[in-house]
């Protein structure tokens, strides 16, 4: 038996497609190659929107990933073949993503690097799960991220995080967690995930796994290397008015910019959130794929050079 149900080669602007079995209720559709190519994510966004506008009976949900779509279906209402036919229609309806203009808010969040709660999560991991691991030094993952990417030091890592807008490719893991990727390709760093994962992470912790930066919305297990902490991004109790209409702060297609603060400043901000005094900085804006691609092209040579150096450093670094 095989997990691959069908493959479609790339055609024109449409990426290659692989349909994979994920049990008897799900099909995973993957687009293009496993590369940090945001155009694939824009394509996923388009297909997801199409399926929302043209509901397929029996399709419970299409849940996006960075370059994939998980189709949850009721086999009694739609069999696997009919499901794939319906999604093929959505693929055919896609126009080139290169001219897309998407609604996108810019959210500025404070970040305290190397905060004590993230250190506590790492400390607990070493006492309960794995004592010695290459990604842990002095109850922190930060020096490992630095070394894996060949950065000159911690400040260079912090500058990499604060020096770009982060694109929320989709939401998942636990309620409201943004999976974010750098819009400036020069700021693309990558790091392996935990092996095995942590059983506890503080709410508000910020970490990186592969090329993706995430904010932990609730206390949760987790596999990303932690480097800082921010303010709440999820609150079902809506203690702050920003959560009144939706317990989730960061939507797919929003962008996040991090602003460094001290841990004391962060703790004060977190208290202010609970008392509904904090001011979340949110600008309503748009995102033009054309402009993004033009900017990315301008810095491509520099980004490629940086990437080669980082890959060389990664090759020299132990994997957990």
């Amino acid at each position, binding site marked *: *038996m095989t997990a691959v149900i069908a493959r479609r080669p790339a055609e024109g602007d449409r990426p290659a497609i692989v349909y994979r079995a994920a049990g008897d209720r799900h099909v995973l559709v993957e687009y293009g190659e496993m590369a940090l190519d945001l155009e694939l994510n824009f394509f996923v966004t388009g297909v*997801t929107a199409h399926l929302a506008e043209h509901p397929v009976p029996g399709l419970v949900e299409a849940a996006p990933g960075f370059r994939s779509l998980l189709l949850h279906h009721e086999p009694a209402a739609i069999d696997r073949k009919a499901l794939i036919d319906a999604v093929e229609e959505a693929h055919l309806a896609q126009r080139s993503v290169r001219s897309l203009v998407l609604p996108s808010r810019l959210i500025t969040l404070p970040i305290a690097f190397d905060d004590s709660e993230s250190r506590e999560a790492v400390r607990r991991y070493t006492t309960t799960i794995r004592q010695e691991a290459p990604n842990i030094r002095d109850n922190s993952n930060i020096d490992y991220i630095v070394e894996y990417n060949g950065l000159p030091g911690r400040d260079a890592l912090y500058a990499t995080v604060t020096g770009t807008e982060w694109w929320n490719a989709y939401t*998942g893991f636990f309620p409201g967690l943004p999976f974010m990727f750098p819009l400036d390709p020069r700021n693309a760093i990558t790091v392996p995930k935990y092996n095995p994962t942590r059983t506890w992470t503080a709410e508000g912790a910020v970490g990186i796994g*592969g090329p993706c930066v995430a904010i932990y919305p609730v206390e949760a297990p987790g596999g990303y290397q932690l480097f800082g902490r921010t303010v709440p991004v999820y609150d079902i109790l809506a203690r702050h008015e920003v959560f009144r209409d939706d317990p989730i702060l960061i939507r797919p297609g929003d962008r996040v910019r991090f602003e460094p603060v001290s841990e004391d400043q962060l703790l004060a901000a977190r208290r202010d959130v609970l008392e509904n005094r904090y001011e979340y900085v949110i600008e309503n804006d748009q995102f033009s794929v054309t402009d993004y691609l033009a900017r990315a092209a301008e810095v491509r040579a520099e980004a490629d050079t940086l990437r080669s150096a980082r890959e060389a450093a990664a090759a020299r670094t132990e994997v957990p």
Partner: protein
Amino acid sequence: MTDTHAVFDIVMPGLQTLVQDYPGRRGLQSKGFFPSGPMDHVSFRIANALVGNEPGAPALEIPMGRLALRALAETWVAVTGAEGSGIRLNSTPMPLGETVRVVPGDEITCSIVKGPGFRLYLAVAGGIDVPMVMGSRATYTMGGIGGVEGRALVKGDVLRARPVTAPPPRLRVPASLRPALANVWEVEVMRGPHADPDFLTEQDWKDLIGREWKVDLNSNRVGTRLESHRFQWARPSGGVAGGHASNVLDGSYPIGGINTNGDVPVILGPDGPTAGGFTVIATVVQAGLWKVGQLRPGRDLIRFREVSLDEALALAARVDYTTDPHHYEEL
């Protein structure tokens, strides 16, 4: 308040007793919510069927036992699931898989579940009345929603139910339709989405299917952890997704997916992560998921059996058949 009545006072809440409904909170995976709902959806639906409820009506999930509750009204209940809990109605042993009438003052108590099995389900006629939150009444403790205030029951909680107009027929599940509990389990899976040949080697797949896996003590509704295992992997590394070959660019996970966290396979539970950057090498099929809810952490062993899509669908139909009260014995 007028259309519900108080049915139970929680005297001893147990380890993490939760109000669940089925199929739970669906269609919110893209916001980061897995469906919640019962870990053993078969025992859960059978309990509801025995008291005349819709199969998905809100009822209790009781991991490991140690529950005591006092009835506050005349009503009908049914308990299903794990064996060896010493469950009693007052001083007499209470049968599993049967409709049982209770009157005010009656006490239902059980001790720690000895097994086989790990979770008990208790349904009450009319279904437990808790608010609908985001499309479901299921408790999701990590998100703080559903059930009783988004949390496990505590001593002193009073549960309410919608009263029923007539007593439900008294039924018993025949032995042939009862879920078969074990200490060594065979769990049906389908290969993938990230299996051989592009992610695992053929030998890796044989290793997954061929060996017995111990269920780690650190297992819960989020995930069932298995032992660490060094797969060979078909790829030298996860590339841009991270140096370990178990790493992929992040995507959404299927419930029941066997998610390789580095070297540790984890079966994703109903409160599990909806997405992430680890391969899912196999997926427990709908008909096999209930067994994951009855695995005893730290003790039970499992063996995976690969099934085709057609077999998975046939098994699911067989499981659904066991939850239909038309096939039960009248007492």
